[in-house]
């Protein structure tokens, strides 16, 4: 029985946007928190921390996100944890995001001139205070545009959660298409909704970049 694509189908797609957004926010916040530690480990003086964090980043940057989601989802089953697609998607995306944000932020931390570290150290500030009051506030300024830009990647990345059965925008599109058999129309609309979510963020990222590129020193 084939249904026509109508208002109800469109509303169904729209309502799935909330899951895409929620998953994006979780991945972004979780990835941000873990990513901060990854970035700190990457810029640490302690060699083992640098090795571990470098390996972590390379594994997540060097394998497809889809494989990472599969490994979390099916890996949990293998070790006897019954993980819902929801949790698996959130965990997988958080890990992936943390690796990418960690690497972006590593560059931002390292862009703060060496003299700032030296001045803060010579004033007696130890690592936590030095980071918190001197280095990170300067790194954040550099980090904002690429971080907002990366949020676009996170939103688009959530579409892969459809494949492990989590119903977000893409999965909702598949469901509607299975009922209507109008793939071009349905996925065209799905793509347009993604674009409507991501484009403002891209614009924002560009504007922030222009603003922070203005000389401030």
């Amino acid at each position, binding site marked *: 029985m084939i249904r026509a694509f109508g208002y109800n189908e469109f509303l169904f797609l729209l309502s799935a946007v909330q899951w895409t957004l929620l998953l994006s926010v979780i991945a972004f916040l979780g990835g941000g928190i873990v990513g901060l530690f990854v970035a700190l480990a990457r810029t640490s003086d302690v060699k083992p921390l640098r090795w571990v964090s470098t390996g972590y980043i390379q594994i997540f940057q060097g394998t497809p996100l889809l494989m990472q989601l599969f490994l979390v989802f099916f890996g949990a089953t293998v070790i006897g944890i019954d993980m819902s697609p929801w949790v698996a998607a959130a965990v997988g995306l958080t890990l992936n995001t943390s690796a990418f944000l960690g690497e972006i932020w590593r560059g931002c931390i390292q862009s703060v001139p060496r003299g700032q570290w030296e*001045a803060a150290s*010579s004033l*007696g500030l130890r690592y936590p205070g030095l980071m918190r009051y*001197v280095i990170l*506030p300067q790194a954040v300024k550099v980090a904002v545009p690429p971080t907002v830009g990366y949020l676009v990647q996170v939103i688009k990345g959530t579409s892969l959660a459809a494949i492990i059965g989590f119903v977000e925008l893409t999965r909702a599109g598949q469901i509607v298409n299975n009922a209507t058999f109008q793939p071009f129309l349905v996925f065209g609309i799905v793509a347009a909704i993604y674009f409507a979510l991501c484009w403002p963020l891209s614009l924002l990222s560009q504007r922030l970049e222009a603003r922070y590129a203005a000389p401030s020193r």
Partner: protein
Amino acid sequence: MALATEPTRNGVAPAMSADVVIRMEGVQKWYDQFQVLKDIDLEVHRGERIVICGPSGSGKSTLIRCINQLERHQKGRISVNGVELGPHHRQLDMVRREVGMVFQSFNLFPHLTVLENCMLAPMKVRGTTKAEAKATAIRYLERVRIPEQADKYPGQLSGGQQQRVAIARSLCMNPKVMLFDEPTSALDPEMVKEVLDTMIGLAEDGMTMLCVTHEMGFAKSVAHRVIFMDRGEIVEQNTPEEFFTAPKSERTRSFLGQILAH
């Protein structure tokens, strides 16, 4: 190398051997294969003012950066105020609190105002109250004669003003010793004097100072002792009078010939 002369400038002898603030014994440092410091022995007494000069790459900056361990030495011993620098953070923290440093490139914190630059370390390292830190900061900004710039950001100041703020920022920690690493080298010529005047003022107040600088006029008028370094060694050290008029070593003579030629 033994210390040849006790500082006796202006008939005042600020130093007694019990009053050693910095002691370096057999300090050596390598960058990979290249040895930057070769067996450095140095004693700095309370109230003493030392100028270190030498060609670039002679190890003079590295030497003072070892004192607060911005660079780690690999051999020998360094102690500051009786605290020997070792692998532990405790000693390093104690030393860094007592040793102020002024850099060639100022290194003010660009995201903080001048006042905040001066208040940060006293509040976060010494735990002084905000009001107290502010009062101290204003006092030292007045002393370097820029209290009116307190609420500006470093980027809004000239190089000379920034360097004076950097000096005030160090003084706010109430250091026992001040290290200057080519403090006027990055300045436009017309700003050199204001920074040197500030340093002379500090000297007059009895601050113990180690200055890496090529300002020979400053060395002549302020230093108790001038140290000449070349290829990682202390080649010669003497009072400024002796150093400039009767340099003993050939290397010193050729260096002085080059920098005083014009």
